[in-house]
């Protein structure tokens, strides 16, 4: 007993030192003159509230710093940021999905992380504070340019009450594989004449990005890939992808009804929290929303379904903070320092914003312990590859989404649709 306690205390200590540690040297002195920086982030209730608190707290520490905030919806943020960067303006601290940073880096607008601010001597040292591969999506040419403030895996959420009604036990009968999942569907799906009263499981259709987020791990589970590591070749019509899309179609026929939904781009979890679907794949950040819904705490989370549980493949994505290169030096230093400040308490970040930072030691904190099914989310993070990283990520997602929609809504042939998707992306990647 005591050994265990000692070890976990040690772990917490190490973690606190590693992440929350004050910057040792102030080699480049923190500016004493008045500095005003701009930060943009995308709206999400708890997250917005928390960052605003952090801004207030930072102002108390550094009275010469003013931080101006701009918030936009996640769909609007990309357009806004792109136009601003195009005109040479843009914020000091930007917030974008990790996959967009490939494009921004290629365009030369990102400033590498300030090592002094983080109290490290090399980028490797900084990377070591994170779980393996945690910073992969923000690392280019060996330098770290962005720091993720969320590493969201996507896992399977179950509705306990609906399981119980169907005579199933959410713990014992929870599916591990896609076949398991399909076997549950006849019991969970309720149809009344022509109307679907309740779905057993549904894939997303409100956004091509969400569709690719699911299709990517499914493809990897069949032994394939969506995009090569150098980002120059796509495998959209490879045998693994075709199998994945075929599986998607079969699961949908047995378990879902895409024509009938309340989900929208701004509220993807609606069907699940309304009890309209018994099983749904989403991220840990959805937990506060689920708890605020009629479901309350009566839910279970299990790992993303697999083809072969011995070789699990999952997916992780996340939004990250980046710093604008085209700003004055004091701004950039303050910007990185504020980023450090924001990320310095991952447990509070989890508790208040609902996001998991992919740093080491998060799992051992109290907050994490109290967070429902944290271990499941972390396990899916550990077996995950990052969501497709490419300048052309939006085109790839749209091409995939097009194929998925055609197969599901129009009964088109998966191979033919994916061939078309591949052809369009080949042209894009060739340039």
């Amino acid at each position, binding site marked *: 007993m005591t050994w265990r306690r000692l070890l976990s205390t040690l772990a917490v200590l190490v973690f606190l030192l590693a992440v929350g540690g004050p910057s040792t040297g102030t080699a480049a002195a923190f500016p004493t003159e008045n500095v005003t920086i701009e930060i943009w982030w995308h709206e999400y209730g708890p997250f917005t509230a928390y960052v605003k608190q952090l801004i207030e707290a930072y102002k108390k520490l550094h009275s010469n710093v003013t931080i101006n905030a701009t918030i936009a919806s996640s769909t*609007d943020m990309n357009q806004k940021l792109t136009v601003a960067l195009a005109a040479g303006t843009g914020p000091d601290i930007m917030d974008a999905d990790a996959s967009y940073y490939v494009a921004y880096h290629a365009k030369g607008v990102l400033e590498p992380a300030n090592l002094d601010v983080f109290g490290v001597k090399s980028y490797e040292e900084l990377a070591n504070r994170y779980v393996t591969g945690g910073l992969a999506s923000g690392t280019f040419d060996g330098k770290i340019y962005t720091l993720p403030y969320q590493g969201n895996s996507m896992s399977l959420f179950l509705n306990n009450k609906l399981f119980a009604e169907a005579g199933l036990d959410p713990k014992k009968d929870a599916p591990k594989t896609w076949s398991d999942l399909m076997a549950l569907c006849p019991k969970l799906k309720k149809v009344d004449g022509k109307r679907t009263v309740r779905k057993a499981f549904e894939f997303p259709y409100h956004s091509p990005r969400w569709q690719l987020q699911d299709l990517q791990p499914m493809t990897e589970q069949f032994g394939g890939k969506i995009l090569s590591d150098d980002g120059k070749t796509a495998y959209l019509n490879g045998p693994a992808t075709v199998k994945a899309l075929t599986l998607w179609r079969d699961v949908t026929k047995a378990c879902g009804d895409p024509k009938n939904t309340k989900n929208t781009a*701004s*509220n993807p979890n609606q069907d699940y929290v309304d009890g309209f679907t018994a099983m749904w794949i989403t991220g840990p950040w959805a937990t506060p929303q689920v708890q605020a819904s009629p479901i309350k705490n009566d839910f279970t989370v299990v790992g993303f379904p697999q083809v072969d549980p011995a070789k699990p493949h999952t997916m992780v994505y996340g939004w990250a903070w980046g710093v604008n290169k085209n700003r004055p030096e004091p701004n950039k230093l303050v910007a990185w320092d504020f980023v450090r400040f924001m990320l310095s308490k991952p447990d509070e970040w989890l508790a208040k914003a609902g996001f998991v930072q992919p740093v080491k030691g998060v799992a051992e904190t109290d907050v994490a312990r109290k967070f429902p099914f944290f271990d499941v989310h972390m396990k899916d993070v550990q077996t995950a590859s990052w969501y497709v990283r490419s300048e052309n990520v939006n085109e790839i997602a749209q091409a995939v989404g097009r194929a998925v929609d055609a197969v599901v809504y129009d009964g088109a042939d998966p191979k033919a649709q994916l061939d078309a998707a591949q052809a369009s992306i080949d042209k894009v990647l060739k340039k």
Partner: protein
Amino acid sequence: MRRAMRHRGAIVKYPLLLAVTFVGLLPYYWMVTCSLKTNANMFLVPLQWIPNPVNWSAYGEAWRAQDFTRYFLNTGFVAIAITAGNLLLASLAGYSLCKFRYFGRGALFLMILSTMMLPLEVTMVPLFLIVKTLHWPNTYEGLIVPFLVDGFGVFLMRQYLKSIPNELIEAARIDGASEFRIFFQIIIPLCKPALAALGVFTFREAWDMYIWPLIIVTKDSLRTLPLGISLFMSSFGTAWDQLMAVATIGTLPMILLFFFLQRSFIQGIAISGLKE
């Protein structure tokens, strides 16, 4: 015989009119009633046509969730400024284009028309670059000046003003009135209906602006209502009752404006639609 025919006509007319009214008002009705429903009753099957229980809290909650008062005032200010600008400049331009002759008049009109043909999304980036050179991002000027006049307004006013008899203007000139006096004391009073029509349309477009404010506004204090609504939708999943409440409030100014200006407004469109 006549009376019988009128009755027959009535049997067809009034149901049709009622159907048209129903279709025209349905979305408004739905918007308002949903704002008064509880979230639990929002998706009932079968539909709840009349909210029961009636729940007013959505209005208060939604309004407090963001700085909607500020957004409302911003949008109002910008919309009024743009409308005023359009009314003045478009009527001046329309007057010039149909009652005066000068070299290049046709070409200028063509140029003005051509600006109506492309959607804003296409010209947005170059426009932003221009606005940035003027140091107008994040200012009211940036929101207002690019839209101070629109080709559509010029077109509408010109159409309407064509119907004013030249004799009137000539007579005033012979009497020694200055050009500006003619414009403000004769022309303007005569085109009230067209001005009302243009006013309502311009106000609606200005009230509705979404993409442009998104691009050039970063300060929360300058945000417009449509942006606020969009932001609201992504907050924490959609609270439909609150979203409908915000939508209702966002529509009210338009409805009020329309009711006050109705007669003139409809007359304005009608007469400017006539090519004599």
